[in-house]
């Protein structure tokens, strides 16, 4: 039963492996010429390696036996020449394969990275960043190891074997057959070993992942372990998996411990056979001593690569696991793509309309229900409502980060599904609550390396947002270093930098998610001033957490549980004495408490 399961699993593995392998090969194609060259060099190197022992009988039987010292010198020179040639070619080949391998890896890495750039935000919501980083970095790296140390040397080994076979048979085919008579046994032993070790390895891999997930789970829940004083039990449970892992490893050690001496033994048996059979031939004068010695040398060269090949196989296994992960990422289809006939727009005017929009992040769990509103060019709109009422979702939809389920969103009267994402987003600047700064310097964080944004634009943006005094206080000005995520700056400073970024891009539509975090009053005033300048002359949408900042808006939209409850100007809504009025009152209370 279990045996059968193993078998079908193995078959499945084989199928997947060959499928993955085919896909991997596609990345080799651009370098096929270089690969051909590398293969050619490999063949030459292995030929040179095999030709040297071939010269031994000449040296022994013809030169040494005849006391021909000058002849021996010639042989020696030839041997030297082949050695040096072999060294040079081998160097070239090794370097070339590295070059090919690195190129393929770079291509694959770029492909994964580019693919990631095109994936929709929902994908990022569902996949932890750490996992994605691993795909771009170490998973790709594993493939290189396989290519350079696995595949290429395996090729070399196979060619060496072929050359040795050729020389052995041309030298003395009787003796060649005797030498190789042990080969079927060796192959049989290798196959058995491979089977055993494969089962063992897949169990080990499973146990390692169990160790990992156990550690991960119990680190995440370490407080529970502590609070319930269950350290001992946790350690015991872990030890169970740990010792099972050790047990399985010992099993594989046992297989290796058997297999290695067996290969050595076969080698010895083969030499013994050469000595026995060849010795008889020598006595009868059918074989020379030199040939006998050459055969002993060849048998040594012959059996080691076969042993090594079985190890290469395991390296290949780990590579398959990595490439499986990589390809499953590459198979992830971007959920939001541009239509082939999408309109190209350079500058949009800036009117936005939602027509009966329904949206759910998951299945039927609607976070927006039948939302309709219109924002005219240059208008200022504010969204208010409790957390979870759907405000942030609306701004995500305008930038087309998610695909709506029902209804229509238009910009300048054009359905956003018909506009290229790039053109759409180019015209919209979003300032999020949680400001993300890149490592580099301040200038880079404002331009985001967009060559179209000039130094003048940057300075302009800095002046307008009131960032100037802060920049001047820094020794390097706009070239001041920003570390990862800008942690050396205060929240307010980061906020201002992100304002400058938005302004430098001079968008037609500005979306501002007001920060809720506590900022000191002085910076708060700066920020309020900056916001005023920011929204000047463009369509702007503000998600307000402080009602005091939005009283001058053209329109205020009050949301609750994914629906629009009220819409109108500040005064209109106050007069209505509805939800907005209550929120306003609540805000007033909150201000007292804080």
């Amino acid at each position: 039963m279990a045996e059968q399961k193993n078998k079908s699993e193995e078959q499945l593995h084989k199928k997947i492996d060959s499928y993955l392998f085919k896909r991997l090969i596609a990345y080799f194609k651009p370098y096929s010429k270089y690969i051909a060259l590398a293969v050619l060099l490999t063949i030459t190197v292995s030929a040179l390696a095999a030709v040297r022992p071939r010269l031994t009988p000449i040296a022994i039987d013809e030169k040494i036996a005849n006391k021909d010292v000058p002849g021996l010198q010639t042989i020696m020179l030839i041997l030297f020449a082949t050695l040096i040639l072999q060294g040079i070619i081998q160097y070239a080949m090794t370097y070339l394969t590295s070059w090919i391998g690195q190129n393929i890896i770079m291509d694959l890495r770029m492909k994964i990275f580019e693919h990631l750039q095109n994936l929709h935000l929902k994908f990022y919501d569902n996949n932890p960043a750490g996992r994605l980083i691993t795909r771009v970095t170490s998973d790709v790296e594993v493939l290189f190891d396989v290519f350079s140390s696995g595949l290429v040397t395996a090729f070399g080994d196979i060619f060496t074997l072929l050359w040795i076979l050729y020389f052995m048979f041309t030298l003395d085919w009787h003796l060649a057959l005797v030498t190789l008579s042990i080969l079927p046994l060796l192959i049989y032993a290798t196959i058995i070993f491979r089977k055993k070790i494969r089962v063992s390895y897949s169990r080990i891999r499973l146990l390692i992942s169990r160790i990992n997930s156990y550690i991960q789970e119990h680190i995440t829940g370490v407080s529970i372990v502590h609070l319930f004083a269950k350290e001992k039990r946790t350690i015991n449970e872990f030890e169970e998996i740990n010792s099972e892992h050790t047990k399985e490893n010992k099993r594989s050690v046992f297989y290796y411990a058997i297999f290695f001496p067996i290969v050595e033994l076969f080698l010895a048996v083969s030499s013994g056979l050469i000595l026995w059979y060849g010795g008889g031939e020598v006595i009868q004068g059918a074989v020379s001593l030199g040939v006998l010695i050459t055969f002993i040398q060849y048998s040594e060269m012959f059996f080691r690569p076969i042993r090594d090949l079985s190890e290469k196989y395991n390296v290949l296994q780990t590579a398959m696991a990595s490439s499986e992960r990589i390809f499953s990422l590459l198979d992830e289809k971007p959920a939001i793509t541009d239509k082939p006939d999408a309109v190209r727009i350079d500058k949009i005017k800036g009117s936005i309309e939602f027509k009966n929009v329904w949206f759910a992040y998951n299945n039927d769990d609607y976070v927006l229900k039948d939302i309709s509103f219109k924002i005219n060019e240059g208008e200022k709109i504010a969204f208010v409502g409790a957390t979870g009422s759907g405000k942030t979702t609306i701004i995500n939809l305008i930038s087309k980060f998610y695909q709506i389920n029902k209804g229509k969103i238009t910009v300048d009267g054009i359905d956003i599904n018909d506009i290229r994402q790039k053109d759409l987003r180019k015209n919209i600047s979003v300032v999020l609550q949680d400001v993300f700064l890149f490592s580099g310097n301040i200038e880079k964080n404002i331009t985001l390396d967009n060559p179209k944004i000039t130094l003048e634009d940057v300075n302009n943006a800095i002046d307008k947002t009131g960032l100037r005094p802060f920049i001047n206080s820094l020794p390097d000005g706009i070239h001041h270093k920003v570390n990862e995520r800008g942690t050396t700056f205060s929240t307010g400073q980061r906020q201002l930098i992100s304002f400058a970024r938005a302004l430098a891009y001079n968008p037609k539509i500005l979306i501002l998610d007001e920060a809720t975090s506590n900022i000191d009053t002085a910076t708060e005033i700066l920020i309020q001033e900056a916001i005023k300048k920011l929204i000047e002359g463009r369509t702007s949408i503000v998600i307000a957490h402080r009602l005091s900042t939005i009283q001058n808006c053209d329109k205020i939209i009050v949301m609750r549980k994914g629906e629009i409850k009220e819409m109108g100007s500040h005064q209109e809504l106050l007069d209505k004495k509805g939800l907005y009025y209550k929120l306003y009152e609540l805000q007033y209370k909150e201000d007292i408490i804080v």
Partner: protein
Amino acid sequence: MKSLLNLLPYVKKYRKKLLLGFIFIILSISFSSMFPLIVGNGIDALRTGVTYSKIIFYSLTAIASTLTGGFFLFLVRQNIIVVSREIENDLRHDFFSHIVNMPKDFFNKNSTGSIMALATNDINAIREFVGPGIMYTIQTFYRTLLTVSIMFYINPFLALVALSPLPFISFIVYKVGRMTHSRSLKVKESFSDLTSKAQENISGIRVVKSYAREAGEIAEFQNISRDYFRKNLSLAKVQSFSFPMMYLLTGVSLVLVIYFGGIEIINNRLTLGNMSTFLIYLGLLTWPMIAFGWIINLTQRAAPSMERLMNIMKLKPEISDNKQTDFNIAAENIEGEVEFKNVSFKYPAGHASVLKNINLKISKGTTLGIIGHTGSGKTTLINLLSRIYDISEGEILIDGIPIKKIPLNTLRESIGVVPQESFLFSTTIEKNISYSKDYLDYDKVIESAKSSSLYKDVCSFPEKFQTVVGERGITLSGGQKQRTSIARAIYKNPKILILDDSLSAVDTHTEEEILNELKQVMRNRTSIIISHRISSIKNANNIIVLSGSVIKEQGTHNELISLGGIYYDIYQKQLLEEEIQES
């Protein structure tokens, strides 16, 4: 390198097995090294004319010596490599036991990823050093020693000739090793640039997409990728050198042996058999040369791994039982009266006090409600009681005994905490609920589930209490998780029950139900309820309002309302919010 000395205690444990392994190495190499000698003798015998039976004798002895050598090689691996697996097991066990006992603060400083890398990759690197590393070192040294001695014994002149490239090999190994080292450091640096860029891009993907900067990001990543490519090739330039060079130099040895050996034979100072022996020995020496570089590599990888591991292992768990601990205090005897006396607390890394001068007494069997804004120190207060953190100043007493005197296990066994984040293990619901005990009392599981209003939910699952939760099972809703977490605390049957904002994900109706049930369960016991909602705590015997690290207000619900302070404001605000929700 020094860090590897820390392995000594682990190695000592298996010294007998290791010693045996070393002896087997000597035996296995001694036997297998006889093989070239026998072959050489056989060849010489052929020249001088022999019988078939002698040839068969030589063949059989050659095979027999390898067979014996191989048998010992099997024993070598079964001892040394197996021991390395045992040591790996011990290391991982000790490491895990160590981190499980580390305080919360440790996990704030060390990421889960880095801990997992230590437990698997680093320990594996150390294992490779202990096992294959040590085995090949001894094998290499002994084999080299033996082979060289035999070669000198047969013909000192030819031995010198054969070994003449050795100084060059050593020199080149050294040179190439150094260049490889410095260049691979650069590759590593470049790789970390690559990783940081990928990380930054992925964490900042929202900004990238908002500003349509995908192309720019790709270009930048391409640049870093290229740099990494160049650094790798510069490394390859040196690395590609090492193998051909090695083969070249060993090849030179062979050629020299054939030439000078040939001349010696011509001058009758050497037999052809001797030369064959030399040739085979030289072939055997190639492997140790390669192994040598490999051993260095293994050691270089293991040393920093061991250092990283030791950096963690040498940390002492700050919170543990010590001399002050009175082990006579048992969980059964704890009544549950809690007192905070002038308690202040700062986080180890922080400068600001999180709690200042807290004075508080909770009598046995009463309920304390705690309310306050995020960051006011509510959770910290209860973390101090369970000694997740130790107080900086003052004293916390249970039944009049300072908690530092109570054995840590006893203390934590008498307190049932339902934390803010309801973490459940990915196992069945019943195992989660009965987590506190080592046995599973099904009736008690049901009882606990009923008390936390979870029973009906669980009964709606096809597998009832055997339902597995988490990634491999079903995903519970936030409210279900919270209620499971409450059931888990009830099952523990603690003297002190703490709910840390544990009703936030259930509706007001269920909240009331649970609170009523808890009243029954917690009769004669102490409860502490932290909440944002007035409704959860309004029936508590005593309520404290935390604000700005201190207790601002204290009293019953009615007292606090008539006080007209913060509590009153929160109350008013929540009434209004309720109204907004219902409008």
